[in-house]
């Protein structure tokens, strides 16, 4: 069906390696509007391979919006123009025939470019490793209802837990701050009784690691919340702020360096 086909001009960021300088490369593609953004890049790469050129490196995995692997800044916005959508779930019907699309990697000092559109997001892994877990002694399986949790609390913790760690918050933040990610990972655990036990140590360690990674400071602009594909709330940042102030001034804990 011809009316489902559009022609696009792509300005794609190409960069051979971490410390190489990069530039925009211009390509034309003809694609079906029912494709996702990543399928459109697949078409581009097939085209490049046929021309015996190097395909564009980009990250992807589940392609159903839950793994957090895809990234990209599309026309200046992480995961593109649609709200609450990851790049893999962004469909080409939202673009116009003849449109020019800028495709760039996330830009942040803590997310260095590895190649083309792929950035190193292992800083997030190290933040999780510093405290984003609950220490559990394995033993008998406890009864499911042994610990009472109010629905409203369970819901808040769940909403924080929907963070897929894609890093769009950092890419959108004018300060490249990782506060929304880190705070979601703090409150998904600290709101619940099982996570409460280690809450002080967790927030001290995770904030320290976040700072060590070289992310910026939070100005409460709210760009992260607006661009987050999972709609993680700024409330989490307030929770982390008061947890951190409490853990610093009231608890007996110190951050592990």
């Amino acid at each position, binding site marked *: 069906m011809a009316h489902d086909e559009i022609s696009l001009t792509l300005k794609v960021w190409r960069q051979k390696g971490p410390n190489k300088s990069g530039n925009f490369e211009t390509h034309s593609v003809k694609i079906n509007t029912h494709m996702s953004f990543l399928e459109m890049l697949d078409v581009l790469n097939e085209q490049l391979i046929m021309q015996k050129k190097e395909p564009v490196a980009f990250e992807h995995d589940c392609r159903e919006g839950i793994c957090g692997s895809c990234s990209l800044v599309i*026309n200046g916005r992480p995961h593109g123009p649609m709200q609450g959508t990851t790049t893999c779930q962004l469909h080409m019907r939202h673009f116009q025939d003849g449109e020019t699309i800028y495709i760039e990697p996330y*830009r942040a000092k803590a997310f260095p470019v590895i190649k083309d559109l792929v950035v190193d997001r292992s800083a997030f892994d190290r933040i999780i490793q510093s405290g984003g877990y609950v220490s559990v002694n394995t033993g008998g399986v406890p009864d499911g209802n042994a610990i009472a949790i109010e629905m409203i609390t369970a819901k808040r913790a769940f909403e924080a837990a929907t963070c897929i760690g894609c890093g769009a918050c950092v890419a959108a933040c004018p300060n490249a701050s990782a506060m929304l990610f880190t705070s979601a990972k703090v409150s998904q655990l600290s709101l619940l009784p099982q996570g409460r036990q280690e809450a002080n140590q967790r927030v001290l360690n995770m904030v320290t690691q976040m700072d060590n990674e070289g992310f910026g400071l939070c100005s409460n602009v709210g760009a992260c919340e607006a661009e987050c594909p999972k709609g993680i709330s700024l409330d989490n940042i307030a929770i982390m*702020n008061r947890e951190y*102030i409490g853990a610093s001034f009231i608890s007996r804990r110190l951050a592990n360096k």
Partner: protein
Amino acid sequence: MKWLVNFLTSSLGRKVIMSLTGLFLCTFLVVHMIGNLKLFADSDGHKFNEYAEFMATNPLIKTVSYGLYFFIILHAVQGLLIYASNRAAVGGGRRYAGKQVAPTEARAAARNMAMLGTLILAFLLLHMWQFWFKAKFGGLAVEGDLFNEVKIAFAEPWVVIVYLLGLVALAMHLLHGFQSAFQTLGLNHPKYTPLIKGLGWAYSILVPLGFATMPIYFYVMAFNG
């Protein structure tokens, strides 16, 4: 005390410093604005000059004023250091070539706090040189008559324009800063946050508006002879 150093040098601690000093400066602004309304108390400025004399000599006020100078400097220096840290975290330069407007692009105040703060600092230096410095170290047109100095200053159109621009920058800085300070302290609650935001709006408009009445009033008075 390593824990305190860790806290104060952490990203969150540095923002807490901004928040607390900012809120302190907010309370100062109210006192300063209400005090200065004495300019309208009588036409010869007797009451205002009396008030200025009291503010300059009262030992308690003097002590608080040293705290005020310290907090202004702390807020400004920390703010500029945070700006530098944030620029470094972004990686410098122009960030994205694509320029579709994001939903938060409209929040110009939030994105330009450092720029607005620098404008306010420049305005503050001018303001202090005009009145505070001259009153303290000499240079007033009539010794001991600050009211007369205000009258002379605001007869100049450029002074009035600079003051009004300074107050617009202040209002924008406060529109974001007031409610942001509470978020930084972790004071966020579905029952109280709407109140804080409403109060922030009212504060950010009423206080600069209160200050703005002064240059406008004296300019109009001078204009009408």
